[in-house]
């Protein structure tokens, strides 16, 4: 082979290598870009309601009392109710949900002694994701997994709380619980339940809630009684006291 042919051969091989290299690099870039877009799509698409509805007249008691609704576990017609006004981004509420609520469920709700009701009270001035979290939990409730999602949000609070956007995390938890992704995503990325959560906030303010978690005992026919401490023993003692008062009143 002449020197010139050698050079051309080498150049040809070099060109072929460069073509293969370009193709491989391009394919890797395309796969990477696709994977990245798929991962962040939940956050870049849609405009979820993340704060109270300003058009709702917060001063009109009739408006918000009609809209406000808690989520109940147990029999809501029971004599005693344990009412929580809570914020999904509040660490104290996380502690209550993970340490106290399971005891309430086991000893009071499942035994029929009381029902438990959760009202959203997102402290939106300090917790930017709390309102959206409240809505997301209700969206999970549409698929009958409100309490599972409620606990999931509190279990992972430290993971999503500090992020700039929590939408992706909320979609991930829904996926983990086996919720229908499209339905859940459509709900979260709308303003569904923004009115209910806003109304719950107003109801809490009317009830004197200033921080979270705030726990009340609801005695049928007698209204709300605040519980000073949020541990299980205090709640149980407040229930006993309320039942004694009822008995005394009955006599």
């Amino acid at each position: 082979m002449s020197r010139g042919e050698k050079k051309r051969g080498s150049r040809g091989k070099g060109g072929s290598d460069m073509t293969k290299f370009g193709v491989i690099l391009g394919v890797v870039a395309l796969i990477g870009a696709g994977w990245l877009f798929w991962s962040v799509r939940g956050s870049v698409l849609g405009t979820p309601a993340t704060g109270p509805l300003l058009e709702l007249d917060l001063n009109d008691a009739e408006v918000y009392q009609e809209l406000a609704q808690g989520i109940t576990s147990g029999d809501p017609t029971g004599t005693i109710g344990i009412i929580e006004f809570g914020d999904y981004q509040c660490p104290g509420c996380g502690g209550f949900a993970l340490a106290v609520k399971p005891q309430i469920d086991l000893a009071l709700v499942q035994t029929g002694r009381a029902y438990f009701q959760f009202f959203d009270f997102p402290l939106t001035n300090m917790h930017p994701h709390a309102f959206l979290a409240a809505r997301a939990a209700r969206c999970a409730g549409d698929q009958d997994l409100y309490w599972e999602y409620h606990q999931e949000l509190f279990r992972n609070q430290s993971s999503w709380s500090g992020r700039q956007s929590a939408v992706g995390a909320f979609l991930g938890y829904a996926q983990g619980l086996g919720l229908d992704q499209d339905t859940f995503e459509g709900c979260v990325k709308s303003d569904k339940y923004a009115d209910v959560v806003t109304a719950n906030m107003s109801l809490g303010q009317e009830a004197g809630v200033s921080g979270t978690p705030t726990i009340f005992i609801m005695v049928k026919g007698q209204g709300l009684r605040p519980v000073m401490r949020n541990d299980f023993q205090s709640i149980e003692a407040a229930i006993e006291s309320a039942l004694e008062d009822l008995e005394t009143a009955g006599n």
Partner: protein
Amino acid sequence: MSEDATVLHASPPPMNRMVIAVLAMIGLFVALYLMAHNMGLTGPIVCGVGDCGTVQSSVYAKVGPIPVSAIGVAGYLILLYLAYLGVQPIQRESPLIGAFLFGGSLGGVTFSAYLTYLEAFVIEAWCQYCVISAVVMLLIFLASLPEVPRFIRRAS
């Protein structure tokens, strides 16, 4: 065109630099994914194994105000640029690019080793994407080793 220039242009692109470019592209997307997670743009990091949430929310996930993943993105971008430049006909024999590739990947693999140590002994949790990045960086370092005799030879 001179005879020397023809010979220079005809030399095949260095295989190790092509490998580095492809690996840096892979590492870049892994680092971009971790950065997107830091910015709250992704869901929880889905881990078959490990605990990325713990690692990513630890104090070691940032160097001052800068997320480690952002440092990774910058590092992989630089390596990708150098490797891509290094396979272009006019730069194939460049000892300077070889030296930068070796030096950069040595810095990268040292930093990765430190982060892996933190995962193993301080945070005591593993993030598989961080492990993937560490493996990619190690492979880049190994692929950069053939550069050493090249720039030593040129220097001497």
